[in-house]
């Protein structure tokens, strides 16, 4: 049924070699089967009726007209959910279909299956839902004084700090040293970031196929097959074995596919009609179909000696989690844990709070909390450099964190973290000289839209450093399974549930297997929940590390087993890899309760040249130089691709990307109104890969996907500040902010 369903015999290189992607030939030919490309005989189309309100009481739902519409096979509401009515990535606070209330714009209320997608859409229009609109909780600062959206407090009692204010998802306070310590100088700022969308190009899609025996196969674009299954099965009232989740081709993810989209809806309709049911969201729907990056407000004070040594940092972080918890508790913690940036700070007080509102739900997106605090913290470092009249790069070098230093949680950095080396490497990159005027308008800020001859163009150079954790943290049992079969003919098959979301992990798996087994003929079994254990999610920059560890261990165990037997009979082994254990933070002090809360850290330093047309409020990022701490490159070409692509997403947040809301309603759910960087917006990115192997990681690898996104927003804002002299405390930066 799917192109990925049959094991493919693939040839790849070994670790560290520059090898083309295995899935590139089918992708350039249009033959790769994405989840939205799947079909099955007798297939119906699913459609979701969504709430037009951000907050309302549901008085009644009448499906009587809809079910009689032509081509319609089923219309279902919360009454028809066979099992648990609620699910969630970490806390089951989200209804499969709305019950009594809707808490955000676009929340699923009913689902329809019909022969044609247009019939399904028209039938959904005929479902009569009577709402009583309620006042939305739309401002994250006011949320803690308004009526509780989740009075049952689903995130309380999980070892988090007690915070009884309404709508608090989690509060974390990290107290480090004596935060009242005075410095010679201090700088303050209030910073704000808008809501960013992952805007993966492949919309949420999947196909649910009933097996005729009460079970279901779901082919879906997702990031974590096993955790999807763990949420789906209870809602269908099925045992895990009767729910098989298979990876449909994934058109990008970036965190937005960690939470469920169509999985339970498709399965409900398929089981009810006994027909395969396919969902493909359109772009407008996709803006409500997944969680986004948390918008944030951040208050910061940095104190330093007159020589520029940081003495104390105070930071208060407020994150709008939207209507449901998703991964807000972890984003809240990450924002706090990396709030100080990669600097050695002896004293700090960090308070981070994520709140529920009726705004679009927020959760995982590339950078996961560290993006927000990097933007604020690096702006503060620039401000401090200006106040002290110290070169911004020198100020960062002076305070650079190094192995042996402590994070504000008390964790001593035991692994690799070459911050000073990264700063020097990025600073040493030589940007191109300023271009003469007049020039082709395409090379002016605003591009072809620029109506001047460039009289108002000013150039600025910015700099920033950012870091974050690799893999899961705070005591989460982070593991990845891999299964290896050695056949009598000398070939091998590797089975791992790791989601290939475009990042290239299937190539990593085969490179590792080839290296370990010493054979070229290695097949990759299609990722699915049947036949192999959980891989954990393709997120947190962890998949390369974890899959490499699991595949390495399984390959070695398979070879040992074959040696023990002393013959060529078929060997089939599965191994589960775990990185060093982490422990939770103390709920009162934010300090470590064990040796480490994070297993490893990775960083990126970035230098940016930008031009601003200060008459028109237009920008052009001219050049970006990046130095990234990558541990060890498994495939250098793919590492560069992660840096370039991750940088582009940070550029989007700096300059153009924001989901606009009015009282919780999204007003720009399209690529006409929500802009992502085009070929004309992206400058050349010059990358320096710093290989400093991570001691406890397989082959010394680190994740590479997130650090460039963490830092590029901050670095671009820094360049715009240098060009305009404005503080620029909010991203995305708007034309009004930079018109002088």
């Amino acid at each position, binding site marked *: 049924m799917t192109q990925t369903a049959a094991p493919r015999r693939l040839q790849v290189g070994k670790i560290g070699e520059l090898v083309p*992607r295995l899935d590139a030939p089918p992708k350039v030919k*249009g033959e790769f089967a994405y989840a939205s490309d799947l079909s099955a005989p007798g297939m119906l189309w699913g459609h979701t009726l969504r709430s037009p309100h951000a907050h309302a009481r549901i008085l009644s739902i009448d499906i009587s007209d809809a079910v009689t519409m032509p081509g319609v096979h089923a219309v279902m509401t919360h009454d028809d959910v066979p099992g648990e009515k609620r699910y969630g990535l970490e806390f089951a606070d989200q209804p499969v279909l709305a019950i009594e209330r809707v808490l955000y714009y676009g929340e699923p209320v009913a689902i329809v299956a019909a022969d044609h997608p247009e019939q399904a859409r028209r039938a959904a229009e005929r479902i009569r839902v009577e709402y009583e609109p309620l006042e939305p909780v739309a401002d994250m600062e006011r949320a803690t004084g308004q009526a509780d959206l989740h009075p049952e407090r689903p995130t309380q009692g999980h070892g988090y700090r007690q915070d009884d204010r309404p709508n608090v998802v989690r509060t974390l306070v990290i107290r480090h040293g004596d935060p009242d310590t005075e410095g010679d100088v201090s700088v303050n700022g209030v910073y704000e970031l808008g809501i960013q969308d992952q805007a*993966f190009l492949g919309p949420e899609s999947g196909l649910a196929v009933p097996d005729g025996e009460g079970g279901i196969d779901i082919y879906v674009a997702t990031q974590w097959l096993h955790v999807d299954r763990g949420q789906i099965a209870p809602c269908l009232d099925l045992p895990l074995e009767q729910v098989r989740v298979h990876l449909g081709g994934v058109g990008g993810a970036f965190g937005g596919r960690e939470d469920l989209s169509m999985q339970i809806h498709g399965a409900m309709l398929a089981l009810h009609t006994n027909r395969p049911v396919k969902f493909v969201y359109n772009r407008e729907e996709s803006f409500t179909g997944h969680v986004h990056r948390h918008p944030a407000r951040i208050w910061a004070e940095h104190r330093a000696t007159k020589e520029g040594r940081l003495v104390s940092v105070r930071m208060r972080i407020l994150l709008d989690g939207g209507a449901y918890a998703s991964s807000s508790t972890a984003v809240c913690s990450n924002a706090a844990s990396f709030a100080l940036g990669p600097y050695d700070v002896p004293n700090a007080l960090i308070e981070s709070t994520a709140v529920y509102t009726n705004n679009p739900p927020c959760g995982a997106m590339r950078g996961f909390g560290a993006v927000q605090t990097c933007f604020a913290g690096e702006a503060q470092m620039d401000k401090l450099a200006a106040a002290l009249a110290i070169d911004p790069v020198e100020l960062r070098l002076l305070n650079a964190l190094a192995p042996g230093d402590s994070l504000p949680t008390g964790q001593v950095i035991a692994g690799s973290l070459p911050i000073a080396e990264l700063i020097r490497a990025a600073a040493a990159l030589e940007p191109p000289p300023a271009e003469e005027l007049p020039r082709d308008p395409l090379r002016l800020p605003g591009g072809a839209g620029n109506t001047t001859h460039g009289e108002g163009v000013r150039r600025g150079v910015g700099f920033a450093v950012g870091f974050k954790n690799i893999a899961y943290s705070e005591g989460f049992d982070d593991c990845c399974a891999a299964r290896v079969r050695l056949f009598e003919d000398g070939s091998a098959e590797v089975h791992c549930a790791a989601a290939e979301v*475009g990042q290239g992990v299937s190539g990593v798996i085969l490179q590792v297997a080839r290296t370990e087994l010493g054979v070229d003929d290695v097949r990759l079994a299609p990722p699915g929940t049947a036949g192999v254990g959980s891989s954990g999610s393709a997120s947190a920059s962890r998949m390369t590390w974890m899959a490499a560890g699991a595949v390495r261990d399984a390959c070695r165990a398979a070879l040992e087993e074959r040696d023990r037997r002393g013959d060529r009979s078929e060997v089939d082994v599965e191994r589960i890899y775990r990185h060093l254990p982490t422990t939770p933070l103390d709920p009162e002090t934010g300090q470590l309760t064990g040796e480490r809360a994070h297993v490893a850290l990775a960083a990126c330093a970035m230098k940016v040249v930008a031009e601003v047309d200060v008459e028109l409020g237009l920008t052009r990022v001219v050049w970006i130089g990046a130095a990234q701490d990558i541990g060890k490159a498994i495939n250098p070409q793919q590492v560069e691709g992660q840096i370039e692509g991750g*940088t*582009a997403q940070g550029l989007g947040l700096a300059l153009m990307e924001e989901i606009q809301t009015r009282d919780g309603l999204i007003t720009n759910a399209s690529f*006409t109104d929500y802009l992502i960087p085009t070929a004309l917006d992206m400058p050349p990115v010059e990358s320096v890969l710093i290989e400093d192997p991570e001691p406890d990681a397989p082959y010394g690898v680190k994740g590479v996907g997130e650090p460039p996104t963490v830092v590029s927003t901050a670095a671009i804002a820094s360049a715009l500040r240098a060009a305009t002299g404005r503080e620029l405390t909010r991203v995305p930066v708007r034309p009004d902010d930079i018109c002088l």
Partner: protein
Amino acid sequence: MRITVRVNGEERQADCWEGESLLYALREQLGFPGSKNACEQGECGSCSVLLDGTLVCACLVLAAQADGHDVATVEGLAAGEELHPVQQAFVDAGAVQCGFCTPGLVVATADLLRQKPSPTDDEIREALSGNLCRCTGYAKIFDAVRAAAQ
């Protein structure tokens, strides 16, 4: 209504509802799912095809408008197992990550190079500015276009 479209040189027929786009007909009725449905509003270029030799977004053309016309899709570029030079360049340069934008970019690039065999960097950027990519940051796509142009 019944439409007849010549897709990649072969005549195909489909029964369409009048409101269906050419993209939907190609993907769901005519057996050519290579053109992608990323935005379906003409902003992202993932569904780029040639209609009578002109580059269009298949999502903005009604299937009925294509009745009796020639459509060239990404599936028609390779000669069997042998990739079109633009496709090969995308593979070699590392220009493919999730690949959802790739079919549209490959079609748009082949069209660009047919009209301008040696485009400047600015011409490449302008020509591809209607094709959104969310994974690569475009750098390796530009490398691929430059390589294919040689």
